[in-house]
């Protein structure tokens, strides 16, 4: 049994998700169907977009902001941050530049989300 707060709307329903039978997950405490879908996804394959920083060499700033282009499995958050911590890129960097391709084999690229000029 997992307890979750639904994030779809300000109601913030407190969900109880019974996942003893993975084929038949039972969500209670939801007010609408979106809550049910959220509860099931959150238990079966939770995903998060990761936003962080990558070191820039020779830029106007020491770091450039970045994101995973799509959400990646939640359990890979800290491993992906470790990869980003060890990544260095040369200025200039533009929004959308791929900084790490296919991070941790997820098929998702990490792209820059701001522009950093060369100085």
């Amino acid at each position, binding site marked *: 049994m997992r307890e979750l707060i639904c994030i779809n709307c300000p109601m913030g329903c407190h969900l109880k998700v019974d996942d003893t039978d993975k084929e038949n997950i039972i969500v209670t405490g939801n007010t609408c169907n979106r809550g049910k879908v959220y509860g099931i996804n959150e238990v079966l394959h939770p995903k998060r*977009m990761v936003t962080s920083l990558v070191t820039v060499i020779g830029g106007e700033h020491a770091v450039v902001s970045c994101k995973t282009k799509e959400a990646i499995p939640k359990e890979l958050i800290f491993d992906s941050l470790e990869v980003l911590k060890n990544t260095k890129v040369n200025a200039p960097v533009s*929004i959308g530049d791929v900084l790490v391709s296919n991070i941790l084999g997820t098929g998702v690229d990490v792209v820059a989300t701001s522009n950093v000029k060369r100085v």
Partner: protein
Amino acid sequence: MEKKVRLLIVGGGPAGLAAAVEAYDKGERDILILERENKLGGILNQCIHNGFGLHTFNEELTGPEYAQRFIDEVEKRKIAYLLNTTVIEVSDKKCVKALNEGGLLEIQAEAIILSCGCRERPRGAINIAGSRGAGVFSAGTAQKLVNIDGLMPGKEVVILGSGDIGLIMARRMTFEGAKVKAVVELMPYSSGLNRNIVQCLNDFNIPLLFSHTVVEIKGDNRVESVIIAEVDERLNPKMETAQEIKCDTLLLSVGLLPENELARGANVDISRITRGAVVDDRLMTNIDGIFECGNVLHVHDLVDFVSLEAREAGAKAVEYINSKDKNKKYESIAIETDGKVRYVVPELILKNDDSNPLTLKLRVSNVFKKVRLEVSVDNEVIYSRVKQVVAPGEMQTIDLKSEDVLKLRKANSIKVYLRSME
């Protein structure tokens, strides 16, 4: 040296950028944006998390990406702007003084849009006892240190206040290797979004303590610990519940205040509730030709709504500049609220014949469930919507059709209120 410009925009953040773009698209070519930072985009530049722009662009952008969309629109139109330029005075005659590397600038404008945003309530505003060791930061300052400068403010962190910036910084500090020991919230509820509570705290097992506050900060040279305690219904700390949490950093996320020193200097009337200007339905203040939009007018929770409001201000400023009878005064009527609706923006409706749709924006004073949000004109209900839940952290909007706006303009009394459905 005095310079003349038709439309002057103070602040090149999301509000100023959207106002400039809209004013240009409405035909105005003589526009100047003044920005005190070294790049356009305002606070969005340090908000590297995602979740911006769902309403405007139908996709989830990060702050810098959202800003860049508008910066690109400004550049495409070749709208003039000055960076590293701080406005130090705005007069009620619409004369603006600003400083930059070149010295003092004096600019006479025909209309001014104040879009200078808000700032964080500091430690001094909440009176926490204790020593003055290093390590106490506002959440936004910490955000700038981490995200722009690549510096870490500390290793073991307590956050006071569960507004969205505090929640976002809890995750951000965790990502950068810090240990966030607790988020402490005075109220029995959070003013932040559920989504942020789940994805910034629960995902990392960071405790959120409601009805708690920091009563003392310890450590002479550097913060060594904070004492927290539960509060009673009147928000007074119950000292018997006090406990010490070891930490080297305290982040404050205790509210935002519109930055209205410039407006006050121009004799603009300021609302005691929003701390922004009192504006009419053109977003114009009591001073002819001075407009406000964005967080300087009232603190928004979504940048998409800032952009929409700013577009409105841009369009109305252009209408004002081009109108033949600029100085014509219209009577206005103030919108009344009950205690549950804390404020409505705009507060004043002009008694003229302008026929246009209008969006009223409002916040409630507490969490209310199963209510109707209603607008009445001379006791006739002209708008009614069921709300399963409303909360202070979520701005509500009321979209009125032009025929209803005409009713407001002729009214003797306008009320916006919540009606219980139970």
